């Protein structure tokens, strides 16, 4: 029994790392631009499908490298053409816009690639378990965790060590002052949006290797990401990371005792956090 709980706890952390990857992209965009990006799941699906299309030509690794970049390019365009116009307005406007985009992306992928789930094969050596006792540690899942950690590490380095990152963080705290100091806020927001969408694209390619790739893959994964942000606390990237790991682990452990509640538990956690500590675990007081 203890072994079963430990297995599921560890396994839950693996899944949690994946949720966190997706939630971090959402969180980045939310923090700097105040846009709740509902289309994040749509971008995720597009990332997966682009990889699926590219794979026969440049292989899995090429697709993994290129598809998120292309997704980010699409993100930059969407920000430039549509989302930018709504920054000054009530957040409801951008919310409605991205809400509509989510539908368009889902039906767009359905139109381009069809409603049927497509097989997305990963390299054989990645899809086998590393040991027969810890069979849930497949090469692919370990790779996902490593990649998620590398991405998170790179993101934190970028935010703390580079000029762009420092400006993004400063903008998150006080965009007006940053602008007065001569930083081009439009470009800053544009790049930041692209960075968030890059993470969505990356999560999309990884998800396609683990789940069936179909147009609704994004909408199935976006809810846990929102929950991760709310639990972790709005405005805090470490909080988002923690939120993701926490819901993954909780969902895994609950499966041992009460399997049909494995999904409901994350919403219960969200409810509890909102009741006891509304700003979330690491959210700043009063900011939101």
């Amino acid at each position, binding site marked *: 029994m203890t072994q079963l709980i430990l297995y599921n706890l560890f396994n839950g952390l693996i899944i949690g790392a994946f949720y966190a990857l997706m939630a971090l992209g959402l969180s980045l965009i939310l923090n700097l631009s105040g846009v709740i990006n509902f289309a994040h799941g749509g971008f995720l699906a597009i990332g997966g499908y682009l990889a699926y299309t590219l794979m026969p030509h440049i292989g899995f690794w090429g697709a993994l490298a290129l598809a998120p970049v292309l997704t980010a390019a699409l993100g930059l365009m969407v920000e430039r053409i549509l989302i930018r116009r709504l920054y000054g307005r009530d957040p409801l406007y951008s919310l409605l816009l991205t809400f509509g985009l989510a539908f368009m992306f889902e039906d767009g992928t359905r139109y381009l690639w069809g409603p049927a*789930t497509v097989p997305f094969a990963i390299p054989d050596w990645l899809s086998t378990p590393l040991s027969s006792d810890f069979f849930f540690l497949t090469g692919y899942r370990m790779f996902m965790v490593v990649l998620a950690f590398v991405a998170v590490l790179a993101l934190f380095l970028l935010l703390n060590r580079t000029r762009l990152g420092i400006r993004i963080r400063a903008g998150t705290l006080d965009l007006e002052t940053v602008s007065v100091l001569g930083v081009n806020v439009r470009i800053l927001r544009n790049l930041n949006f692209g960075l968030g969408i890059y993470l969505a694209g990356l999560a999309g390619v990884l998800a396609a290797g683990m789940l069936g790739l179909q147009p609704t893959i994004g909408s199935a994964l976006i809810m846990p990401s929102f929950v991760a942000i709310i639990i972790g606390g709005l405005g805090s990237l470490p909080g988002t990371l923690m939120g993701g790991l926490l819901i993954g682990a909780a969902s895994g452990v609950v499966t041992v005792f009460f399997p049909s509640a494995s999904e409901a538990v994350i919403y219960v956690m969200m409810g509890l956090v909102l009741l006891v500590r509304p700003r979330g675990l690491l959210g700043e007081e009063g900011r939101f």
Partner: protein
Amino acid sequence: MANGVFSRNIGRRTVIKGAVAAGVVQFASPFIHTARAADIVKIGLNDPLTGTYAELGKNEQIGCELAVEQINAKGGILGRKVELLVEDSTSADTGTAVQKGRKLIERDNVDFLLGNVNSAMAIALGQVSNELKRLHIVTGGHTDSVTGSDCHWNVFRVCNTTRMETNSVAKTLFTKYGKRWYFITPDYAFGHTLQQGFEASLKAFGGTEVGADLSPLGATDYSSYLIKAQAANPDVIIFLHAGQDMINALKQAVQFGLDKRFHIAGAQQELEVLNALSPNARIGTWVFEWYWKQPNVPHVAEFVAEIKKRTGGKVPTARHWFGYASTWTCALIANQEKSLDAVKLAKALEGFKLPPEVALMPNEPFYRAGDHQLMPSLYVGHAVESGSEPEDLFHVDEVVKGTDVALPVSETGCHMVAPS
């Protein structure tokens, strides 16, 4: 620059409201155009075109469309042209399905109602069609009670009951693969009744149920369930999912290497699912309700060719056949009785045999009188990595007669109440 550019009065409440709205996205659906005319016989199809079951619903629709085209080419129903009206029921929101079912009958005034893929929706729509006295053929919702405790005088069903599916494969699993079974079951009517069916068989054979877990409908991650299942060390792990859930579960089971240590099996399996899996994940023992490769059965090849024209070369699945057979049933019975009166047609359908060009399977399928369940053939076999053709992904080991695996009418719980 205007000060407003920086106003970021977005709050936690907005984010939470937004998150609620994000959940709603999954249930919203596109509006589908419908037409009306007095001298036309209308058949209404209420099926999921978005969400988890979108592909299954769409395939049923293609089958219906082919049937309608053929019926019109042969003179229509009672000499009148036939038109198919389609409504998207969504995959999970029964309220929407019911509302659209009412719309089809009350506003569009359809003469026949077809649908639904989702069992819960099939039951709910059965109540609607019964209240509004329309002949209703359930295309692809499998839970037992549709032709059991929830049966109605006006409701018939083409696809099998879950009990027929489990009965047809249970014996093979028990004798060939072992007597200790573990169930992973989707948490809704379809999964529950499949599990009950297998449990009844297992008890009769004297086997052991070493564990059973319910997974939420639409779950993406099955790893925690698989960890639990392997810890119980069963002979057979039984997956009772459908559609995307089945794809996700099997994909993860194979990545974990569980197929090398346990026998993987289940009841209903569909070509849509096997097509979506990479070759190494096409594993397990299953039941197909119809299969496109039946060299000795008349008219199957023509049907396959016709469907391929409409799908860009993809072969028909059981879903295409469900839509096709349901639509043809309406036309055949109305033309035989020279009437559109639901009461009269329902009476005539009791015991009605599908002709070979619609049946497309051995053993003369017919609608059983007591519970209105079609008694077709079932195809027990195993998934194969690749067959003689790209879409030949299932090997039929045995064709089972529906009458041999269905519960007798007296045990279905169906008490048919005559129309008032």
